[in-house]
């Protein structure tokens, strides 16, 4: 009886206070726009997060995939949404790369959004096909590429993809003579790397683990400042002799600019709670991302740095998509 009683009271209270204030937020389902197709790691993380938030905040967090044009279609839809906390946006590093590549975007990657939190970091790994590349480490790899200019290619998931930019950053920092070969997807790039049609690639760790363990691909270095838990024996770029190279593909949760501070903070702590549960951590580790959280302010600052950094890499490598 007592439970029913408190349920009724709770229901009455919630209808009475059912206005759009931060106290009652969320009072209806929340939409998380994922500007990528289903199945990618951004989508998988969004779905894990959505499920956790639905449980902890008492309202459904619904994932809506709006893929296309280097994530800019879904992102502009989110930028145009009401800043009431009921439309959120999940972005990756692509968010600060696309503005350098696509002309005339209807939004500003930084000013059009209120940043809620960083969610995760995903290390990339420099892979070579050992049957095509003799190099045993990064230094030898650079030397080999310089000795035979443009005979070593690196495969990526397309023009302006983070896989290409990881390679572009490497080329600009080391002077290695690598030639870029774009594919339509990361799995097509991986296939040709495995078969030896291309010699190297920068790929997400989880996509490559099985092949590395089977000995079909050799991992020369991970792109992050610290080693990856999944590849403890593979050195970081810095350890392998490329000082200053540290890069990851990160994920962040954003809301349209002008979303109230209370709602942003509320979501920030809910996200932190959700992603620190052991099963969420484990699920994310399985898809190759490490949970990495931050305050809204820190992430705003970090995104501005990343925006400048990848802009320079895109410019240096002459990357354009029209």
């Amino acid at each position, binding site marked *: 009886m007592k439970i029913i009683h408190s349920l009724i009271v709770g229901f009455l209270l919630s209808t009475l206070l059912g206005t759009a204030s931060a106290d009652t937020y969320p009072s209806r389902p929340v939409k998380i726009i994922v500007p990528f197709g289903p199945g990618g790691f951004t989508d998988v993380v969004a779905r*894990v997060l959505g499920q956790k938030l639905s449980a902890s905040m008492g309202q459904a967090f619904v994932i809506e*995939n709006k893929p*296309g044009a280097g994530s800019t279609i879904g992102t502009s839809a989110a930028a145009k949404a009401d800043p009431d906390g009921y439309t959120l946006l999940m972005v990756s590093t692509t968010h600060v790369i696309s503005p350098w590549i696509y002309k005339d975007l209807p939004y500003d990657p930084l000013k059009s959004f209120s940043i809620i939190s960083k969610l995760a970091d995903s290390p990339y790994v420099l892979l070579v096909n050992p049957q095509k590349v003799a190099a045993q480490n990064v230094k030898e790899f650079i030397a080999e590429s310089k000795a035979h200019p443009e005979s070593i290619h690196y495969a990526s998931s397309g023009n302006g993809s983070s896989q290409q930019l990881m390679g572009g950053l490497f080329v600009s920092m080391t002077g290695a003579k690598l030639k870029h070969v774009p594919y339509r997807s990361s799995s097509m790039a991986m296939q040709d790397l*495995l078969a030896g049609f291309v010699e190297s690639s920068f790929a997400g760790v989880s*996509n490559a683990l*099985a092949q590395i*363990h089977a000995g079909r691909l050799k991992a020369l270095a991970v792109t992050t400042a610290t080693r990856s838990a999944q590849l403890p024996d593979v050195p970081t770029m810095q350890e392998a002799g490329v000082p200053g190279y540290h890069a990851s593909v990160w994920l962040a949760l954003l809301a349209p600019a002008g979303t109230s501070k209370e709602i942003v903070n509320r979501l920030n702590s809910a996200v932190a709670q959700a992603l620190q549960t052991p*099963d969420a951590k484990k699920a994310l580790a*399985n898809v190759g991302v490490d949970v990495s959280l931050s305050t809204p302010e820190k992430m705003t600052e970090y995104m501005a740095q990343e925006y400048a950094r990848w802009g320079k890499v895109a410019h240096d490598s002459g990357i354009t998509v029209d």
Partner: protein
Amino acid sequence: MEIISNLILGLGVALTPINLLYCFAGVLLGTLIGVLPGIGPVATIAMLLPATFALNPVTALIMLAGIYYGAQYGGSTSAILVNIPGETSSVVTCLDGYQMARQGRAGAALSVAALGSFFAGCVATVVIAGFAPPLAEVALKFGPAEYFSLMVMGLVAAVVLAHGSLIKAIAMIVLGLLLGLVGTDVNSGVSRFSFDIPELSDGIGFVIVAMGVFGFTEVIVNLELKEAREVFFKKVSGLWLTRADVKAATPAVLRGTLIGSVLGILPGGGALLSSFAAYSLEKKVSKNSAKFGKGAIEGVAAPESANNAGAQTSFIPLLTLGIPSNPVMALMVGAMTIHGIQPGPQIVTNQPEMFWGMIASMWVGNLMLVVLNLPMIGLWVKLLTVPYRMLFPAILLFCAIGIYSLSNSGFDIYLAVLFGLLGYVFVKLACEPAPLLLGFILGPMMEENLRRAMLLSRGDATVFFTHPISLGMLIAAAALLLIVVAPAVRKKREDVFVE
């Protein structure tokens, strides 16, 4: 006999009550989304992904796989009954399946589709069980040069698809190629024919074109020809196959299964290409090729067997190399990794229960599908007796929902409507949409691989002739071309094809 002990191990896993239950849930759901046009396995599996979290990984994968191959069964139903491809791979089934339905033979068409799929599914399961690792190595032999030559061969074969005039068929293929150019060029990053519309920057979706020129066009045409529709409702006869049907369909099923099993292994649209390929081949080898496009049972049996076999064998690169060959397989990778399984060569040795359990479940699932689908045929055929004025708004609504669900974009619906109108123009001009679709699929892949091959060979065009597989396919394409253009043969061809 290692394969038998492995399959017994797999059956032990697949036949536990919980796995049987989820397998059934998967195939049932798959059949439903297959029947509904547009709503495909990608969206369904994505939505169910978090729900599988609590399940045992094997159970989860059995269910998700069931959705995928279940959809291949269901997809033929709407293709046959209302000329709308329920799944992309059932586009070809529309050609003859719908004609059979118009002749009152919808029941026979549905039966042969279900039985052909069942047979193909069983064979493909054995192929996976017995030859997965060596076949995966074959897939790796296909580089940019080989893909280019395969596409060339496909395009030449596309000419065979049409049953009208040769010139019109070629024109439609070229139009398809041009439509395929829309969007950002993979190699240079240059945006082509996208007119600064962001939705066009990734190109036009295949489903949008297919739904437009088949589904929407069909509705328009039917509304115009009111009387003709009424006639074909009235003479719905025999649900079952006649002896002559079985005789005609059996070799078609066998050839379709073979083609599907082979092409399914190749990443990049195996199941879809295989149904086109099976249809073309059948038309070439069949004694009564004149009947193709007018309700030939072989024209349903071959592509349906091929797409189901292809759907099944497309698991091979995933399970043995960890490479997803299509978007559904990419989702399966997501489902596996979320459970801590790295798809790749170690699965067979590290997780034999999972690997063989999943394979055995495919056989169990196929059996469930045939049991599920055969009794439904009578019900489906009854659907045809619903007056068209009530049926067509429902068809359009489901199409619109399906198209919207592709990427949650209203723009896609408008685009499909546009293709529907274009399709109506094609009907008036007596141009066939099938070669257009094939050009649309093959063109971009051909260009992409041509340029990638040239990039990797540093501009040396001889790669297409020095790679043996590539050379073989180019020779085959040249031979096909000769057959099509050789004057004597051409004359014969026109006798056969011109109505």
